[in-house]
């Protein structure tokens, strides 16, 4: 087990290298001159050139990549070209909101989806099955921002149950923190319900077809507890897998949700940085995302060892 984990951790390095090269080249090849954007509309070409030199942007690309990679490996992700604030500080400030949103969204999505998936599997082939799966897909079919606007219009403006936008840290009070996250996590969560529900249903059906379930059924064990105790536990592996995939997708979904609900998270940080070509932020954040993704997948792989006794690592 330990050697497996170590091997996997070592495997992280080439992945990060790939990400680093990919992101760096993408940015520096993209048209868009941060110096020009910084200088603003009333500036002269001369001003822009001087700013560019002072930011080190006219050094050869290879040199810029080398100095950036070396600094990154040492943990120095540089500073924003615009505000001068260290990238690590910016990411740290925005971890809380994105993390909170991701967790609450996952909880919402998994709760609804697993329930629907189990329900559909229980009555597989029936009208209920089709209706439930159809419902799941509907949540997926409308873009998140439209769902968000509609929710805000009714829940916040008409009924005044919840705030329109913004984020309050948990230190300000759990109730307040939650109240700002309810709408965004539902708007975003609905988009994942279909994916998770589908996998839940499929793996539940697979498990239900196994002999030992038939035996238990023949012995008179009633359906509901059997579903929950035997089937669900064994279906956990594929569900956890898809949650892992979901995390990567979640970051993408979070970007839009953060814009709609004005949550100051990492998604918005990067989108804003891309539009003004703030290279250090973009590069640094991508590296952090990659690291998070890789570590989460590692955690999931290790969790298989506990969930499924048939999987063992030598």
């Amino acid at each position, binding site marked *: 087990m330990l050697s497996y984990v170590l091997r996997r951790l070592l*495997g992280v390095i*080439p*992945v*990060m290298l*790939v*990400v680093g090269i*990919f*992101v760096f080249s*993408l*940015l520096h*090849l*993209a*048209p*868009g001159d941060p110096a020009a954007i910084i200088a603003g509309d009333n500036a002269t070409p001369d001003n822009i050139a001087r700013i560019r030199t002072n930011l080190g942007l006219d050094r050869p690309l290879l040199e810029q990549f080398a100095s950036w990679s070396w600094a990154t490996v040492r943990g120095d992700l540089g500073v924003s070209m615009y505000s001068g604030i260290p990238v690590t500080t910016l990411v740290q400030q925005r971890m809380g909101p994105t993390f909170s949103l991701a967790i609450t969204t996952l909880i919402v999505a998994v709760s609804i989806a697993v329930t629907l998936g189990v329900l559909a599997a*229980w*009555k*597989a*082939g*029936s009208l209920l099955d*089709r209706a439930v*799966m*159809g419902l799941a*897909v*509907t949540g*997926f*079919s*409308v*873009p998140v*921002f*439209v769902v968000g*606007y*509609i929710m805000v*219009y009714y829940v916040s403006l008409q009924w005044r149950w919840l705030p329109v936008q913004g984020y309050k840290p948990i230190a300000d009070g759990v109730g307040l923190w939650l109240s700002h996250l309810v709408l965004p996590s539902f708007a975003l969560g609905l988009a994942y319900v*279909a994916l998770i529900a*589908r996998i839940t249903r*499929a793996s539940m*059906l*697979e498990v*239900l*077809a196994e002999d030992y*379930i038939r035996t238990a*059924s023949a012995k008179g064990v009633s*359906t509901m507890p059997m579903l929950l105790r035997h089937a669900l536990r064994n279906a956990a592996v594929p569900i956890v897998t898809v949650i892992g*995939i979901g995390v*990567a*997708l979640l*970051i*993408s*979904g979070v*970007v*839009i949700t953060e*814009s709609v609900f004005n949550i100051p998270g990492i998604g918005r940080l990067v*989108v804003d940085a*891309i*539009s003004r070509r703030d290279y250090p932020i973009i590069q640094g954040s*991508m590296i952090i*995302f*990659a690291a998070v*993704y*890789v570590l989460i997948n590692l955690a999931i792989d290790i969790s298989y060892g506990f969930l499924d006794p048939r999987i063992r690592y030598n």
Partner: protein
Amino acid sequence: MELITPARPSATADFIRRHPTIVIGALLLILITLAAVFAPWIARDPITFEPINRLKSPSAAFWLGTDALGRDVFARMVYGARISLIVGLAVALIAIVSGSVIGLLAGYFNAFDAIVMRLMDGIMAIPSILLAIALVALLGSSVSVVIIAISIPEVPRVTRLVRAVVLSVRDLPFVEAARSNGTRIGKLLRRHILPSTVAPLIVQATYICASAILTEAGLSFLGAGTPPEIPTWGNMIAGNRLYLQIAPWTIFAPGICLALVVLAVNLLGDGLRDRLDPRISRGI
């Protein structure tokens, strides 16, 4: 005495009864595709406009009203079907084809596998939407760039899928037999291994198609979508989002179409998977 033979239902009716989802999904898609193909006959030019006609609600002159520039929403919805469907199909095609080729090779040749899977992991580690925004910023906004930007993050998942199938199949006796018979690699891959991947690939393709159409809307929301001049359902919804209360027809028309197509494609996918995958049972 006459022999009374019970009426046999036709094969078609039987199919419809047993697989309603595939049928509904397919029918919806065919309908929308027809509308897209016959767009010039059904609707006027979606691109030209008179600003004096802006934000008119649905009427006899403009069946679904006009948008903020004065463009005909119905025309844009119908022509939008073309691009949206093309985006969905193209992304699915590119992702499936590239993913299959890479996956086949990776599954069969171990050396290739090591390098390629690291690359795929790297791509999967980058949040897809950020990758897409960066690509659009790099290559400029056009339908082809958006297609590529959406396809790239899908390739690793297809690769994994195909690779997994190949790994499970390549050491089976029938493949072993073909190999020892002297079958060349190419033919081996194509005729003996590839067919096992077809069923899951078809299902995956439908999901990729649906997801691509939605992602296009998300990209337009973030300002990295298809050029606003050309109508797509995605950029209509995103581009008119300010008008949800002022001129809701500008959003509902493309929104409903988008939802219908995504629903149809998903139904098709679910139905095909139920039909093609022998492991799924039919209930307890």
